[in-house]
């Protein structure tokens, strides 16, 4: 039985985009781990990092790379490694291709190398903004389940998942942004009328 820490290193309001994935991961890990704790970047205390056997870094990509909030955690942990937990990553991006998360993974690998940490691999999720509202959510759930199994067995892992087709992605994303922009306009109009 291992102690697992999940760090959500996304930017403050980007937590909402990775939360559904973290919740599922917790469900698959909890029955078999001694404890599964989840912390967000803003309230993360780096001293607790060394109390766990495995650490899962999760975040929503920011400009094709690791968000600054995660980089801040890396810097805070710099040179403090007296215990070496295994590092896994769950990286989500809004584009269709989960390969857009590759660069973030490489940055994590560079950090692990500098800090002598054992990097064990990642689950990369594309189309993260909308995937849970499509039938592809079952595919994502299966990937998260496999990812959790690999973590519990302390195996290396390299998984990728995204929406079923690029065409479906383009259609769903267009619908998503149309709806969100419309909602925002309505909100702005209401705000202006209240001001008047």
């Amino acid at each position: 039985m291992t102690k697992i820490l999940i760090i959500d290193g996304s930017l403050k309001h980007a937590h909402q985009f990775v939360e559904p994935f973290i919740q599922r991961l917790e469900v698959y890990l909890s029955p078999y781990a001694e404890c599964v704790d989840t912390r967000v970047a803003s309230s993360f205390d780096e001293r607790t990092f060394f109390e766990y056997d495995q650490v899962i870094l999760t975040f929503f990509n920011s400009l094709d790379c690791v968000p600054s909030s995660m980089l801040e955690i890396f810097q805070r942990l710099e040179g403090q490694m007296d215990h070496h937990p295994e590092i896994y990553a769950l990286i989500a991006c809004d584009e269709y291709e989960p390969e857009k998360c590759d660069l973030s993974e490489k940055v994590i690998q560079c950090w692990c190398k500098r800090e002598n940490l054992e990097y064990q691999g990642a689950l990369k999720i594309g189309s993260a903004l909308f995937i849970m509202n499509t039938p592809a959510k079952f595919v994502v759930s299966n990937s998260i389940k496999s990812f959790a199994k690999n973590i519990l067995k302390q195996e290396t892992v390299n998984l990728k998942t995204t929406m079923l087709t690029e065409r479906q992605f383009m259609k769903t994303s267009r619908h998503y942004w149309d709806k969100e922009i419309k909602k925002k306009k309505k909100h702005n109009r209401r705000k202006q009328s209240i001001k008047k």
Partner: protein
Amino acid sequence: MRNLVITDRDVSGNLFNNSVIVNLNNITYSTCTGALECLKNNGICYFKDDMNLVSRWMNESQLIIYVTQVKYGCFDVKFKQMLERLVVNLEPYYTVVEGETCHLGVSQLNKKLIVIGYGEVSEQEKQVFEQLLEETTLGYAYTSVHAYFCQEDEIEDALQTFGGVDHD
């Protein structure tokens, strides 16, 4: 506005006579919250600070020079926080460019980007950083992107090399 230098440390102003120099230590800006509200709001950021102006300059400049510390093959935190605020310059919808989906930049003005990265950077980190630049400039009309690496104490010498690069 034609040339813009964004730096996370002091640089000699006389090396860039035809540029606006933005020293990140001298401006105030909030950290992006990542909610993507600006994409829903026609590129209007929730925060009203110095980055509103810098993001506009980014769109109008034809030569952009970054001077940044490189850590783990990525920008340093301060610089990354600035770049994250530039999400306002993106379109919300996705477009396929070179076979990849991405957000197009609002400004399609032809630009050149020179990045001077300093710090203890390994070969692997240099490669990652160069790939990062390639990836982050996809969707914008960058005609050339170049990265140069040096140690922190060599930065003035490196900048001497680029002094005058912003001249016509």
